């Protein structure tokens, strides 16, 4: 289980998180929605220890991330797959090598096992046969899927998706949404999906949390968020800034 309690984080003068609370129960998929720049990706980076909270607590499987030594932090990261917003593939490596990178950090895996498992992961995201391509040689949607293949290669317990559908056309967005659902069934990972794409959030999430002004403003099942009467939530869902003005 991932649990964040009272997390505060500022970058210089800009305070991004102001007492952020969120639970991601085992086996569930939670969508964290909110406007661009609200701090959604910052939340993900706290979970894997890429950022440290100024105040508050971030625990994964009951252990405080900020208190882990380097070995324990690496062990945690091996249990977490991270899908980056722009895939963050290593552009000097082929897709197969990208996927193999995480596997090479697992003790006891032979080179043959690593290659086989990387090929399986690429197959799982429908990129079988493209393993020898470089990231610059494939489309944006394929890069996203390659990023997902890399994240699932170590068979993680948790999958963190950072804007998995941003910048994609509607068809590819649907493909990615279905892929997230399929992966949940096939590898059973707990998911936290950061997105401002409501369609994807409604499709993949068991529950949704709306991040606004550094805190979770609303939290509930997708159906509850969809009919929320909170004008701030409604403003986001309907894309209607005038609703925000009514509360300002």
């Amino acid at each position, binding site marked *: 289980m991932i649990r964040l309690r009272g997390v505060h984080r500022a970058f210089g003068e800009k305070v991004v998180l102001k007492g952020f609370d969120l639970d991601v129960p085992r086996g569930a998929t939670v969508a964290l929605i909110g406007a661009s720049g609200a701090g959604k990706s910052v939340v993900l980076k706290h979970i894997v220890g890429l950022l440290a909270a100024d105040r508050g607590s971030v625990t994964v499987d009951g252990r405080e991330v900020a208190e882990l030594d380097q070995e324990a932090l690496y062990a945690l990261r091996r249990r977490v797959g991270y899908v980056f917003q722009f895939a*963050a593939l290593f552009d000097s490596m082929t897709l197969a090598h990208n996927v193999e990178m995480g596997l090479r950090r697992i003790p006891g895996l032979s080179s043959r096992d690593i290659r086989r498992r990387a090929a399986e992961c690429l197959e799982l995201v429908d990129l079988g046969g493209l393993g020898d391509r470089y990231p610059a040689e494939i489309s944006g949607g394929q890069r996203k899927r390659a990023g997902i293949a890399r994240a699932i290669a170590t068979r993680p317990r948790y999958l963190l998706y950072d804007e998995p559908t941003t910048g994609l056309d509607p068809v590819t967005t649907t493909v990615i949404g279905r892929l997230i659902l399929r992966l949940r069934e096939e590898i059973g990972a707990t998911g936290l999906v950061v997105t401002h794409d409501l369609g994807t959030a409604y499709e993949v999430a068991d529950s949704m949390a709306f991040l606004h002004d550094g805190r979770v403003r609303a939290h509930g099942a997708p159906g509850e968020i969809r009919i929320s009467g909170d004008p701030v939530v409604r403003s986001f869902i309907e894309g209607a800034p005038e609703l925000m003005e009514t509360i300002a």
Partner: protein
Amino acid sequence: MAGKTLDFVGATGRAALRFAATVGEWGVLMQDTIRGLRAVRIWGGLVFEQMMRIGVASVPIALFIAAFTGIVLALQASYTFTGAVPVYLVGSLVGKTMIIELGPVLTGLALAGRVGASIAAELGTMRVTEQIDALETMAYDPAAYLVLPRVLAGAVMFPAVTLLASTLGIVAGWLTAIQLLEMSTPEFVRGLEAFFVPFDVVFSVIKSFSFGLTVTSLGCFFGFRTRGGAAGVGRAATSAVVASSMVILVFDAFWAAVLL
């Protein structure tokens, strides 16, 4: 007037603090890099590739510079010595200068441009495209994976390239002497041997070793702290070259004061 003085003092203080903070950040990266030595499985297989990229690929530019430096040294020495100093000392000047000064420093400065900028731009691009974050999420220590192989390769290859360049510079000076200055080979060699001491080579290696550490570690440092997209990558590359060049010249004076 007092206000302007206070502004100046404040600005100087802030600049000094920024400089101290930057040096401190570099120190932290180097500490992480030294700690990364334990993770041989991560960096062990990467050093050879970096030695090829940093060292072998830099040989042509280093030799080009050294050859013309050797030619110019011989011609200028002859011009300066004519009628005043025995001409065989052309060999002394070319040899001594190439080995203890121009070989290491010109190679260092040339490689600061070629290697330092390349490392800063490569790692800077990896930083702004979150590739370094991706490495971390896959349980890789970025200092061990990215910095250590480059710094080790620089420490080994800078002295090697420098020795090669110094040798070619001397050969170019010799060819110039016998072809254009009407000197004989025995005369040139006599001059070459007259003031040569083996420590000169050790001195050259020590200097170029420190230049290698400087250029690669600063390239990595500025690459790692890159912010702000393509413009940030450009700034990182420029900062790496400027800082490396300045530190090389400071080290040049430092080693001369300490070891000679």
